[in-house]
């Protein structure tokens, strides 16, 4: 994977761990949380005014009426009563509200915008004194500074602050620099705090945070995070299973269900080729029928190929898929024979449920002659409608051949 969105609660926790003077008062409600007993662990829930909002990766919560502020704990409970485990629609996407974040309510008058983005040769810090929900309307006020890789941030002059009349200049400067260090050292790839403000004690408070983190850095063990699914995206057991396989494997194994009701299912080989196949299917006007994206590459083992194919066949047969593409480019080093053996084992297992399915195969690479021959033999033996092609058939040609069946 790569850049992953994380929950607001988790982002704030990582930041607070890195910058202890910020403090951390935040509670995440998950489906398992017993709300009644929460105040036993978090006394401040009964002592302070609170805010609550969903924490499921989508933004513009205020505009959707999903932010409750200045409430007592009872108010929070009523809010949860109203929304927890309820369906909600955000921009045509429907899903259940399951996760919420509760924090102390901070009365304030000033809202600052701060974001850090990561580019190839530098990071960029974006700052504005006029943050908040209208940031886009006030975009002209956003000042930026680029921080080239290997810059010592402590030696950087934040000119947009130095030249302004802004209050709390020193505190803001130091906060930005500390936050930048956390961003850099903890493998964030995107961080937006809109807004942050000062509480009555003059302490910085992060009111709203959006963050993406580079999950490739997981092996460093500096954070232990759950990467939640997008709002509206159903999570399938099979996807989790493939994610787990991918984590353990030196090969690359990905699976995303796009439309389980779609009739076109895909076992795709190669990170680049997998995209192009879906492009071509879409180009023929069948994009809405594409049930899944996925790819396997980097020479997965026979066992991994079997697990991968089985996951897709399970979903496909359950959802009445009609067409299966087992296609890819011409591999550099993925062994077609051994990966196909894994796929064949899965096909054999699901043979009875594949009678109404048409399978199109196109693949090249190490030992493809033998792999294709085994695949063809399997189709004949199991009585599956299967069209098997090698690298002499181009990628567009196999889609043309399949065109009539789509």
């Amino acid at each position: 994977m790569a850049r992953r969105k994380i929950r607001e609660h988790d982002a704030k926790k990582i930041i607070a761990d890195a910058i202890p003077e910020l403090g951390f008062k935040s509670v995440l409600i998950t489906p398992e949380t017993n709300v009644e007993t929460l105040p036993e662990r978090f006394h401040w829930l009964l002592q302070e005014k609170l805010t609550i909002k969903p924490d499921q990766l989508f933004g513009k919560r205020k505009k959707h009426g999903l932010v409750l502020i200045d409430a007592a704990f009872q108010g929070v409970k009523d809010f949860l009563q109203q929304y927890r485990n309820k369906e909600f629609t955000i921009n045509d996407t429907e899903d259940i509200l399951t996760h919420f974040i509760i924090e102390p309510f901070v009365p304030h008058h000033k809202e600052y915008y701060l974001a850090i983005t990561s580019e190839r040769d530098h990071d960029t810090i974006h700052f504005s004194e006029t943050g908040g929900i209208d940031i886009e309307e006030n975009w002209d006020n956003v000042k930026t500074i680029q921080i080239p890789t290997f810059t010592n941030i402590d030696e950087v002059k934040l000119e947009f602050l130095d030249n302004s009349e802004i209050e709390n200049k020193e505190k803001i400067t130091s906060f930005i620099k500390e936050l930048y260090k956390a961003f850099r050292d903890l493998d964030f790839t995107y961080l937006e705090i809109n807004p942050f403000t000062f509480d009555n004690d003059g302490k910085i408070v992060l009111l709203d945070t959006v963050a993406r983190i580079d999950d490739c850095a997981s092996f460093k063990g500096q954070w232990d995070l759950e990467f939640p699914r997008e709002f509206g995206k159903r999570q399938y057991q099979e996807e989790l299973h493939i994610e787990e396989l991918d984590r353990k494997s030196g090969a690359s194994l990905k699976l995303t269900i796009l439309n389980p009701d779609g009739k076109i299912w895909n076992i795709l080989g190669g990170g680049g080729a997998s995209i192009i196949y879906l492009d071509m299917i879409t180009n023929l006007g069948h994009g809405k029928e594409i049930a899944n994206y996925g790819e396997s590459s980097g020479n997965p083992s026979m066992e991994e190929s079997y697990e991968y194919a089985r996951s897709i066949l399970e979903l496909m047969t359950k959802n009445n898929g009609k067409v299966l593409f087992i296609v890819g480019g011409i591999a550099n080093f993925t062994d077609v024979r051994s990966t196909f053996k894994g796929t064949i084992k899965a096909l054999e297992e699901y043979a009875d449920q594949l009678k109404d399915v048409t399978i199109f195969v196109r693949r090249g690479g190490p030992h493809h002659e033998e792999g294709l021959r085994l695949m063809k033999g399997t189709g004949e033996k199991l009585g599956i409608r299967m069209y098997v092609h090698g690298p002499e058939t181009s990628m567009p040609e196999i889609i043309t051949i399949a065109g009539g069946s789509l």
Partner: protein
Amino acid sequence: MMEPYQLFGKHSQTFFYNLKGKPIQHMLDFDHLSKREKPSVAAIIHPGKSGYHKVFFGNREILLPIYSSIKEAAEKHPNVDSIINFASFRSAYQSSKEALQQPTIKTVVIVAEGIPERQTKELIAIAKQQQKTIIGPSTVGGIVAGKFRIGHAGGMNENILRARLYRSGSIGLVSRSGGMMNEFFNIISRAADGIHEGIAIGGDAFPGSTLLDHMLRYEANPEIKIIVALGEIGGSMEYEIIEAKKAGKLTKPIVMWVSGTCASIFPWEVQFGHAGAKAESGKETAQAKNAALKEAGIVVPESFEQFEAVIGETFKKHVPTRQPMENPLQIPERKNTHFTSTISDDRGEELTYNGIPISKLITDNSSLGKIIGLLWFKKDLPAEFVHFLDLSLVLCADHGPAVATAHNAMVTARAGKDVISSLIAGLTTIGSRHGGAIDDACRYFLEATGSLKPAEFVEQMKRQGKYIPGIGHRVKSKKNPDKRVELLKQFAKENISSTRYLDYALAVEEETLKKAENLILNVDGCIAAIFLDLLESCGQFNREEIAQITQIGYMNGLFAVGRSVGIIGHILDQRRLDEGLYRHPTDDILYHQ
């Protein structure tokens, strides 16, 4: 000499980091098909390993040296200007950084997928500062047709032949994806005259070198007539190409397509297989990028399906003469050898010891020590080292009839056995208790010197309940010193520039003498310490080699060679005297039932 637009050429050689037999053999097979004179891999780097790796170059086997560090390999092979890094995603950052720091290494290929973005950004910054090139991470690499292959790029030999990668065409190809690069090797061999060079930059968000970096090289390369590029949804690299085109930096015909047009119909932003393949803004979509490229005057097909046809048309329009196809060579039948020998060669007109003809050794009056240098150490050792070996042989040759080697051999000889059987009987007693103390002493002194104070070392050995090898004698003591040790010490002081191991051994002796009179540095310990001093001060061995020499038993060997002289003497003596079978007197055995 390579041009600035070339990263790899027909004569350039590379290092291969992380010993992997298959891709190395693939590279050498490609070398053969491309009629290269020298293998494209000069050496292998594998932490913790040394020695050689066997590979086929054409139909014969050759040995590629293995080094345990990049620095060492770079020092030994100053002409090698690139490295192919097959380290895992966990360690690729460290090794790539080390490679970039070698002044002689100009190009670093990083294969690992899943390196954190932050680490890649740092590598990019280092490469930029040092004006070096990174290909990858997360890439299969690329091919310069007929000249150089990186790792797995281009797949099996059949594919190399089918796509005619063993000879040069006119197209410069650059792609994000490695699999699609290989697909395009085939497409371009059908639609045009094949590739001149193809590079996959890798699927990460921040590739070490960009599509544009390679397109600019292709622009500068007069043998490349057309540039074909395959971009991908996500990131904004394609806009740099447009800027360069507008600025007149790219004038050759470019055919290009950005994949990922399907993403627009999906219900949410899909993270495709490549880490960089996800649109984070409208500008990063495939549609926007294709439209902008077309707008800038780049040939963009209507869809991917048209790509091959458009390459064909562009090729016909701009390239009047096709590069010849050339008939390919075949990979010859070949058979693995079962043994490797690296010390002597009897196949030529004259026998050689480590490359030196035997006649020269005789004319030069070479001593046995010199021959041991050639056949054991594979070095022409300096005079003082040779002298030491000779001296050690003399000192070890005999120690009277009562010691285990001589006694065993004498008993065997008196049983009527022949010289060889009796010699073997004598030699078989050499081990950690007899003679073999030199090897053990070497190992302990090597480890302890510089890391433990002599007193600490003695204390530690005592705690572990171990004798210190090379310390102690049954008969000799401080007051009755061993003359041999005196001679050796004198030799060392007169001939070796640094004697830190001997000094350490003597300091250990000082500690042990506090405990008992006879805990002196004995002849084994003295030979061991001087041996280490010579290995280090002669400058012909690195740390790993010294460690290996002490591990695999050189000194036991030296003792055995010297002592064989004495053993044979005792055997011949017994055979001359012919006293009959020896039976040990029963009154010298304590029977206990």
